[in-house]
């Protein structure tokens, strides 16, 4: 039995504060997750991951580092984890999704900044996130102004490397992004002391493609009516994919997808057939942010797809596996990652096309646009999304919120009224 308190203490964590954070989670998880009826059996693994979120996986990271390995933390789906792993390091996602960390973030950041940034910085400052504490290098990117400047603050507490993501998608932007990926590769090689070989990179490209395909397979099952898995459960799986050991994650997700497929074959669902089907689009939902999904699903509708960074934006598009040289592989990586349609790009017509395609494929009745407060890119882009959806007669509603619970009553009213409108 591992002594986790010693392990956390060795990571320089604030144990008392950490106790307060972890004591709240089981209660929330019980209410939001465990009380759902008819959950797939295979969700057991993901329940375990959450129950042991700061222990089992952390012990693996500690062991990896004890043997001289490195850990890199990232905050965005644009960071090519294939390169991190090909150089022998472990990649973990660090986005903060809890209100618990926001006050600590606000010690050094403006209050009118997106909660994801405040929580992420607060998690590091408060010493209560063992993932942060386990990282040898934090990988930032330039997807928004808030993050760009927050890296400078975070840099006072931990080594940070920033990738410069272009904000347009012209040929010269692709070339620039490919250059960034080369620089990134050099930085990671320097960190780990290992050369990235084409063989190792090919292996990691295949592995990450398999991971994306596993998620894709699971999402496919959500196209069925009745839907075999709740939106909350599917969201959790995607959230876990950022932390977990990739091979184990693929295995467990394949098992879950197979179970969901079997449910479809026997007509078994977690919502009655004909329940309203919702697409959530917008900003990411980092663990343990399940607020909107919980409100929607306890109001009787099913979330059937997320067009977010913790959804399709993360796993759609594969990296071309035919590259044999590093040159070809880096080009393939640059091309795949630049296909992600984030609102930081101007213009961003691809996102509208994605939304229309997903509305059709997942047989969506209504779209809920999820906007973390003060995320300006997505807030402004709502104008175009709303106009386009309404022109096609697809109901859409925007919800702007943060991690706190104080607006739950208002959100519930809006969501229920939106569902009344669809029924």
């Amino acid at each position, binding site marked *: 039995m591992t002594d986790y308190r010693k392990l956390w203490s060795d990571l320089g964590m604030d144990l008392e504060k950490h106790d307060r954070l972890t004591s709240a989670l089981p209660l929330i998880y019980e209410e939001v997750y465990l009380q759902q009826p008819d959950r797939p059996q295979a969700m057991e693994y993901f329940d375990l991951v959450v129950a042991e979120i700061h222990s089992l996986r952390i012990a693996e990271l500690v062991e990896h580092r004890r043997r001289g390995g490195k850990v890199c933390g990232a905050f965005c789906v644009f960071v090519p984890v294939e390169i991190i792993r090909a150089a022998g390091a472990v990649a973990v996602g660090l986005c903060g999704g809890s209100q618990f960390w926001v006050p600590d973030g606000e010690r050094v950041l403006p209050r009118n900044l997106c909660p994801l940034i405040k929580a992420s910085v607060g998690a590091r400052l408060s010493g209560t996130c063992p993932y942060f504490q386990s990282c040898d290098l934090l990988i930032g990117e330039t997807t928004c102004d808030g993050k760009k400047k927050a890296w400078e603050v975070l840099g006072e507490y931990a080594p940070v490397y920033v990738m410069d993501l272009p904000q347009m998608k012209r040929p010269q932007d692709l070339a620039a992004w490919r250059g960034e990926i080369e620089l990134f590769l050099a930085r990671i090689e320097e960190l780990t002391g290992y050369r990235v070989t084409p063989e190792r990179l090919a292996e990691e490209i295949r592995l990450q493609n398999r991971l994306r395909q596993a998620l894709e397979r699971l999402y496919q099952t959500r196209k069925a009516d009745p839907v075999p898995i709740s939106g909350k459960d599917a969201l959790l799986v995607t959230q876990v994919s950022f932390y977990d050991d990739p091979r184990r994650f693929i295995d467990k997700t394949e098992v879950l997808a197979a179970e969901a497929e079997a449910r479809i074959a026997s007509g078994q669902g977690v919502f009655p057939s004909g329940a309203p089907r919702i697409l959530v689009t917008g900003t990411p939902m980092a663990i343990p942010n399940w607020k909107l999904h919980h409100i929607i699903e306890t109001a009787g509708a099913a979330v059937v797809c997320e067009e977010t960074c913790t959804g399709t934006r993360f796993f759609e598009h594969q990296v071309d596996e035919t590259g044999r040289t590093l040159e070809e592989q880096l080009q393939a990586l640059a091309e795949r990652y630049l296909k992600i349609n984030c609102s930081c790009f101007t213009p961003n017509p691809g996102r509208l096309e994605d939304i229309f395609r997903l509305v059709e494929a997942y047989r969506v009745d209504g779209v809920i646009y999820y906007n973390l407060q003060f995320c300006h890119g997505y807030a402004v882009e709502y104008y175009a999304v709303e106009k386009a959806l309404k022109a096609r007669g697809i*109901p859409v509603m925007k919800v702007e919120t943060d991690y706190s619970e*104080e607006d739950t009553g*208002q959100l519930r*009213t*809006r969501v*229920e*009224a939106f569902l*009344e*409108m669809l029924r």
Partner: protein
Amino acid sequence: MTVLGIDIGSRTIATAILNEKGELLAGQVSDSGPRPLERAREMAGNLSSFRRVVATGYGRHGARADFATDLITEIKAHALGARHLFPSCRTVLDIGGQDSKVIRLDEQGRVVDFIMNDRCAAGTGKFLEVMAQGLGLPLEEMVAAASAGDGEITLNSMCTVFAESEVVSLLAAGQPVGAVARAVLNSICDRTQNLLLRLGIEPPVVFTGGVAAIPGLPAYFTRRMGLPDLLVPARPQLVGALGAALYGIKVNKATG
């Protein structure tokens, strides 16, 4: 048997009792107080005398868990209530104690779109109450002072707390009460107009909620916005409760 509609809002609770023909037998409005659910139960009275009790408003889930038979959102309730009182209604503007909303209806009266203010109290009844306090006037006198006043002072703060200090500073700087009252009403009026324009105004527009009950205020809005007349029910605070009760009658009919 009769049906009770009960609208449990943040500031007030309203009830409406209808007979099977949909005629209003009784309507009541009271402050929510510190324990709205208890207050609601008191106001509901003898529950066994109703065939159905439909709750709406912020406290609807609490009421459903406690004594109500059904619940609907205040969006649907206001749509049903406004349409009942004004059968040609296509837009509902509702300004309550803690939120404001605009609801668009199609020709059949179905809700096709709606918009609500964000989480803060700007542009709601609470905003007016706090400003009236700053001005040291009851609500209707504030409206009268604004209608008689002139000048084009603008309140810069949307936030209720900051706007109150702004009102106090303006008065301290010697601005006439009428001019400051105008600034207050113009602020909420412009915010409301923005909400209306974002959804698109399809007349006739019915104005409901506690703010519509302030004498002179609907007329002030109409003048300032340059709108066709806002239709104001005799008891605008009852519209949500009325809509809830109407829903109960509908369910009764459907279930036989």
